[in-house]
């Protein structure tokens, strides 16, 4: 262990002295420093911060990947080329210890550079966070959707077996079933069983598609859809576990409107950003609903039953009050329209139901087509067992489809800071693997060849989904005749065993979407990326380096 540590320390010092770190930091400072002023995203503050986080983490990741490849390929191959390995290999250090030490030193360097880059990104993001928001909703998006760690829950798979059986029964009743099976037999080469299966799959697809669409029942009176299930889409969610507590803060009663049981409360914009229009809030223990939200104040409507317990007159203008805001959840979705809508906007009503208590939360909205939108909902709409029902009512004159993969419920489970650290750790795990590949290549190839090899095999990790699609065998095995495609497929399958999926474990999307990166996911990624893939790569490097001659015969 002492030898590995000695080489690791040495490698770390070597990289720092080679001015790699300085070059990286200068480059990063220039890029990150100019980015906030150049990139404005969609014009909102949340959009600007998201863009910055997205590009910041991606650029850091790319730059560090390049640095890691070049350095990792160089540390071993240059040692052999410049013969410094003579004095090291003749010391009591096994060659595998040398390889591991080199790798560990590179990981240390990556950790340092990542910490510097992470600090810079975090610092700039905090700087942007203080910038001017465009609206209270923008501020809320910044606080609850960007600077947050949220778990994402997809809708439950709908149970369509009953409907499937009903449809088949109707087909049979109408004497169309056997005709349909016969037509599918053409596709299955006469196999009747396969044809039935194919038909069932088609019907299932149709049912699912129908369930993800809401028709315009009456274009002249779209509000009739409220009562017509054909104009609605219903999702059921389970496993929404709310752990984050309430948000509390202080405010000041600016104005009282006793006649309408309302009050105007001034508070910090960050606190106000946690409120939801028509959502619940407590002012000095009195329950109320938010009826108006501005940047630095909000109006609340008190409930009559609360007033019976405590007089509203207990509050006075100018009084400091304690504000308690209940936790919220977000629903993100991306709707698409079946036909053109005149202004590109879709009108809808969203109804959230507690599956047990039938408590309702309603919100009428106008959202752009094919762009992700977010609704913030009081978390109390979710039942204690973590279930909730979500209903979409289409008020547009076009049919609207929201696919299951385009809708999710997000709920806060932690703060941004730790999530960001976990995100950086994910990048570090990726870099650890890349460092391993670089050391492997450098252990038997010259520097330029080793770099070329690394850049050639890296796509297997970063574009895995694309490659999987490219080499996917055709449905009809008879058409699978291209030798190059078949060869490529088997190479891909082989590489898949060793190469980790760096695309899946990239944290950029999670950080930008304010999505929680769990310790479990981090641990799982660490296991597969480091304990399996990197260990395999380093094992191979150790074996090759152990068996190679470090000197050349010169006569």
């Amino acid at each position, binding site marked *: 262990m*002492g*030898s590995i*540590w*000695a*080489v690791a*320390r*040495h490698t770390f*010092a*070597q990289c720092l*002295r*080679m001015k790699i770190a300085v070059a990286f930091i200068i480059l990063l400072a220039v890029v990150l420093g100019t980015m906030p002023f150049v990139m404005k995203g969609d014009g909102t503050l949340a959009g600007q911060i998201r863009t910055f986080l997205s590009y910041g983490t991606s650029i850091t990741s790319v730059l560090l990947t390049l640095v890691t490849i070049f350095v990792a390929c160089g540390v071993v191959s240059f040692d052999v080329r*410049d*013969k*410094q*390995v*003579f*004095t*090291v*290999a*003749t*010391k*009591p*250090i*096994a060659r595998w210890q040398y390889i591991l030490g080199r790798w560990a030193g590179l990981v240390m360097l990556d950790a340092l550079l990542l910490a510097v880059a992470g600090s810079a990104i975090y610092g700039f993001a905090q700087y942007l966070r203080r910038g001017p928001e465009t609206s209270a909703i923008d501020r809320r998006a910044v606080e609850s959707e960007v600077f947050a760690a949220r778990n994402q829950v997809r809708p439950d798979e709908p149970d369509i077996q009953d409907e499937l059986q009903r449809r088949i029964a109707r087909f049979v009743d109408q004497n169309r079933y056997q005709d349909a099976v016969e037509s599918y037999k053409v596709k299955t080469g006469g196999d009747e069983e396969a044809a039935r299966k194919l038909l069932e799959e088609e019907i299932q697809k149709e049912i699912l598609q129908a369930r993800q669409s809401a028709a315009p029942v009456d274009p002249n009176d779209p509000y009739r859809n409220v009562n017509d299930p054909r104009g609605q889409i219903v999702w059921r969610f389970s496993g929404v576990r709310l752990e984050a507590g309430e948000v509390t803060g202080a405010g000041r009663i600016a104005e009282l409107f006793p006649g309408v049981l309302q009050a105007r409360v001034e508070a910090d914009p960050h606190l106000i950003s946690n409120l939801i229009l028509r959502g619940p809030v407590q002012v000095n223990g009195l329950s109320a609903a938010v009826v108006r939200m501005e940047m630095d104040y909000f109006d609340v409507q008190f409930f009559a039953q609360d007033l019976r317990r405590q007089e509203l007159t207990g509050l006075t203008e100018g009084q400091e009050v304690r504000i308690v805001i209940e936790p919220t959840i977000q629903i993100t979705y991306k709707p698409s329209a079946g036909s053109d809508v005149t202004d590109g906007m879709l009108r809808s009503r969203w109804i959230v139901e507690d599956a047990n208590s039938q408590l309702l939360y309603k919100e009428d909205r106008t959202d752009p087509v094919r762009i992700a939108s977010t609704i913030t909902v009081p978390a109390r709409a979710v039942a204690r067992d973590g279930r909730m029902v979500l209903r979409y009512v289409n008020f547009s004159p076009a049919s609207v489809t929201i696919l299951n993969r385009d809708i999710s419920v997000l709920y806060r489970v932690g703060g941004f800071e730790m999530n960001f650290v976990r995100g950086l750790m994910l990048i570090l795990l990726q870099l650890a693997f890349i460092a391993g590949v670089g050391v492997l290549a450098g252990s038997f190839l010259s520097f330029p060849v080793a770099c070329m090899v690394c850049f050639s095999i890296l796509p297997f990790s970063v574009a895995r989904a694309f490659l999987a699609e490219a080499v996917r065998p055709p449905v009809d095995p008879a058409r699978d005749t291209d030798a190059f495609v078949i060869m490529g497929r088997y190479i891909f399958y082989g590489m898949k065993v060793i190469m980790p999926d760096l695309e899946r474990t990239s944290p950029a999307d999670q950080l930008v979407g304010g999505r929680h990166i769990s310790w479990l996911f981090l641990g799982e990624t660490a296991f597969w990326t480091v304990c399996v893939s990197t260990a395999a790569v380093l094992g191979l490097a150790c074996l090759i380096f152990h068996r190679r*001659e*470090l*000197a050349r*015969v*010169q*006569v």
Partner: protein
Amino acid sequence: MPQTDDSIVRTMKLTKVFRDFWLREKVTAVADLDLEIQPREVFGLLGPNGSGKSTTLKLILGLLFPTRGRISLFGKRPTDVRVKSRIGFLPEESYLYPFLDAHETLDFYGRLFHQARQERRRRIGMLLDMVGLSSVAYRRVGEYSKGMQRRIGLAQALINDPDLLILDEPTSGMDPIGTRQFKDLIITLARRGKTVLLSSHLLADVEDVCDRVCILYGGRQRALGRVDELLARSGLTQITTEALDSRTLQEVRSVLQHSGKDVLEVASPRDKLETLFLRIVSEAQQQHLATGGAMAGGQVAEFLRGGEGEGERVIEELVSAGPGGAKAGEGAAGAEAGQAQAAPEAAPAPAEEPAEVLRELVAPAQPGQEPPRQAGPPAQPPQQADQSVIDELMGNADRSKPRKES
């Protein structure tokens, strides 16, 4: 030399064939080499450029793998990690990390030997003193001159106080001071029971320090044996005396002619250029003239001298106060040395009668004292002694420097 089980290095039919990219045999770098190096031996590998010296060393160190044959190092394979803790290696060039300073360089190598921090620091300090780089210890090695890099390379080879020191062209790039210290060091280490294996084509260096040599040519062993035996010229006798006037010389000639022996050459010994150089530098250093390079190194590091306490003192005395005429006796402090060269002890005994005459002639110079193997300053010889006469008598003026005992 008879084969024994306690040999430090042993090669059996060692062969290394260099193949090209297509695995075709291109050149045989080492062929059927049988070597056996015993403990406490200073062994030299000699040969012209490309004769396979460095290849042999790299095979022994496990940096190259033999095509055929076997190598045993301390009874184990060369790739055995445990063996390496007993080895110090100085490559033909000091392949050091240019971004580290001398201190960091030694610290890194010390760590590879798992040395405790305190011990490491102690040794680094002593080694830097020894190689004369203390004043530039915090300068990057990349900025060092070649000779300074050799010195730090030597220091790294000694950081573990190795039992076997392997030196590839050790004095290449070194100034005469460094070369002299180097030779002193080898002698000191050998005296402590260390084994040294060195390769060189600087024959004088090898001759000064080696007990046995192997001469290679074309990767094959051409000669192997004790230096004394290989160099002995049994047909000649050399006598060194104080300066003789022409009358005495004539008497010597007539005595020898009376015995039927011819005097082949009579000459006064000259200072070696090395000796002159050492003297000039020593004087400059005494005057504290500024230099940006390496200083003359100090004495051999304490841990390399073997020791602490009583033993150390004894060696110290031997090193600093030994009589002149030792092998490599013109140590760093001995710049004035050089004239008190002993007669070659390996010269065969001449016929009885001339021997008696010669004994009479040389009696004042007490040539019978065999100089100890040491690195300290030699004793000041009588300035008026004309050694050249004896050298000429023995026809061996060019070998006027002392020989070490085996």
